[in-house]
């Protein structure tokens, strides 16, 4: 950001008396650098210095204010211009404001105070704009793929490749994955790396909005549309205009609302609740769910036409347990960040701690890993994080059931169930990993010794 001390104000005024007065008055603010010019020609020769603000006398001897304003806007569009005129002429003032002047002040006894305030306001405006630009750059950096999503596993590399494809067009993106895998992070990364990055990213968690309010939340409402609608309010579609609308937990949407959403997506237009007026929309849609939408279509709880409308480019986020060594890479990233943010010395994972993390199934995925690591950083007194500092849910630990006395058959069942849970009930993958026949596992499933559904497998493990 520009040093505030270098805030440059040029006074263009042929009346030496008046310009001296302004120069003296404005220089009472030590943050301003003031320079005065008595002709348009002398001022234009220094315009390349790009002053922050120009106070411009409308009636200069060598060029009229209109023409000079145009030249300023062409050469230094960021420069703010305050017109100072000897006469109050509303028509001229409006015309100049339309042409890009930022203020119009009449030379009267209050002029100096008006000018003082106008410059303060413009300066705040400029600083806010600069802050927004800086923040935008920071957000872009934050959501750069390599900074936002950490990992080297082939499965996550495939996700990066799909995300990159998603940034190039406006295609609708559907992100699936278990809870805590980073679906919103993916949506934001796509947005902030796409041509729409300078416009709004609006996220709506459809599961968190009461059914009765969802239509108004998405499409907006007119004053008096329903009890409590005390004023007109735009909805999320309009809020995200020319940007990206992220519809999280789309599988939770009521079937009636699905029809309205489908219409909005198909027609690219919405109607606010309580209005007849059609509003055209231009938004990029990214949806996410942890549910199996195709299964829901088969069950009749999700509209097939909407399913195909939102499917677009599907990106499936793998569960953390499927991402091999990524768990250690991400753990290190979280450790470094937590220690930096909390002014703690950097920490490492001991060999036992690494083993413990690698052995955990992480049903809560990256979100769970972050919470485990943050706590471990707090608990570990020394530089090294030990296994005992990692507070993970015991039903997912190999070591936990290994410690209990059981028959070989019971161990086998628990061991296979653990791997089924870990690899998302992919029987073929588990058979490969454990080097057993797939028919052995299928037989155990048939005998209800192991389960390929998380709910039942947890229940089974509790019952045992």
């Amino acid at each position, binding site marked *: 950001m520009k040093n505030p001390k270098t805030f440059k104000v040029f006074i263009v005024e042929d*009346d030496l*008396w*008046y310009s001296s*007065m302004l120069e*003296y*008055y404005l220089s*009472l603010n030590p943050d301003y650098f003031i320079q005065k010019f008595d002709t348009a020609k002398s001022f234009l020769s220094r315009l390349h210095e790009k002053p922050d603000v120009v106070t411009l006398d409308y009636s200069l001897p060598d060029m009229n204010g209109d023409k000079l304003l145009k030249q300023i806007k062409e050469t230094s569009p960021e420069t703010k211009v305050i017109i100072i005129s*000897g006469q109050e002429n509303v028509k001229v003032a409006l015309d100049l404001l339309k042409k890009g002047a930022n203020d119009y002040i009449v*030379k009267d*006894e209050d002029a100096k105070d008006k000018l003082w305030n106008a410059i303060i306001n413009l300066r705040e405006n400029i600083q806010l704009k600069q802050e927004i630009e800086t923040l935008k750059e920071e957000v872009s950096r934050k959501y750069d793929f390599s900074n936002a999503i950490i990992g080297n596993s082939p499965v996550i590399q495939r996700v990066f490749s799909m995300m990159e494809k998603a940034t190039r067009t406006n295609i609708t993106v559907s992100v699936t994955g278990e809870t805590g895998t980073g679906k919103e992070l993916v949506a934001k990364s796509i947005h902030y790396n796409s041509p729409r990055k300078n416009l709004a990213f609006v996220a709506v968690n459809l599961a968190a909005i009461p059914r009765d309010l969802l239509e108004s939340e998405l499409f907006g409402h007119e004053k008096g549309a329903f009890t409590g609608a005390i004023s007109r309010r735009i909805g999320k579609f309009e809020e995200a205009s020319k940007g990206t609308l992220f519809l999280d937990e789309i599988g939770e949407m009521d079937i009636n609302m699905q029809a309205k959403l489908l219409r909005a997506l198909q027609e690219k237009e919405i109607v606010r609740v309580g209005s007849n007026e059609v509003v055209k929309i231009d938004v990029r849609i990214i949806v996410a769910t942890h549910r199996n939408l195709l299964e829901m279509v088969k069950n009749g709880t999700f509209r097939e036409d909407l399913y195909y409308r939102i499917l677009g480019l599907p990106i499936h986020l793998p569960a953390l347990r499927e991402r091999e060594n990524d768990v250690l890479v991400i753990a290190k990233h979280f450790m470094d960040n937590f220690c930096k943010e909390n002014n703690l010395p950097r920490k490492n994972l001991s060999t036992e701690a690494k083993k413990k993390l690698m052995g955990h199934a992480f049903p809560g995925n990256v979100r769970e890993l972050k919470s485990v690591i943050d706590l471990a950083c707090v608990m570990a007194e020394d530089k090294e994080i030990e296994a005992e500092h990692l507070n993970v849910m015991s039903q997912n630990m190999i070591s936990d059931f290994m410690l209990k006395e059981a028959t070989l058959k019971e161990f086998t069942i628990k061991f296979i169930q653990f791997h089924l849970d870990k690899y998302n009930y992919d029987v073929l993958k588990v058979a490969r990993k454990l080097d057993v026949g797939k028919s052995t596992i299928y037989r155990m499933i048939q005998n209800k010794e192991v389960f390929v559904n998380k709910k039942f497998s947890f229940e089974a493990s509790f019952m045992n």
Partner: protein
Amino acid sequence: MEIFMEPAEKLYDLNQLEEIAAGNNDFLTALAQIYLNTIPDTSAEMVEATQAGEWAKASKLAHKLKSTIDSLNVHSIVKDIRSIEVDGKNKVNTENLKTLAIKVDTVINKVAEQIKRDFSL
């Protein structure tokens, strides 16, 4: 037209400028010097313009003098300088403008004398 004023009557005040100066007398002296160097000449030019019937030029010069007259609160000619500016621009009541310009010029020169005296310039 006769200009009635007591020899000792103060034709201007520094209230507005003192407020800006906030105790900085150097600034007031610098402005006084600017007045002496520029304002009587501009005023003389305005008188010449009215004598020559160059009403638009007279109007522009009156416009230029206006802010100085206002900030020094030279109240005896505050209205007159505006009449010259507006009527000159619109080319109306031009028969009075010559006289008004002379009146304004006389006061401006009197103010110059008072400033010289007050600031020891």
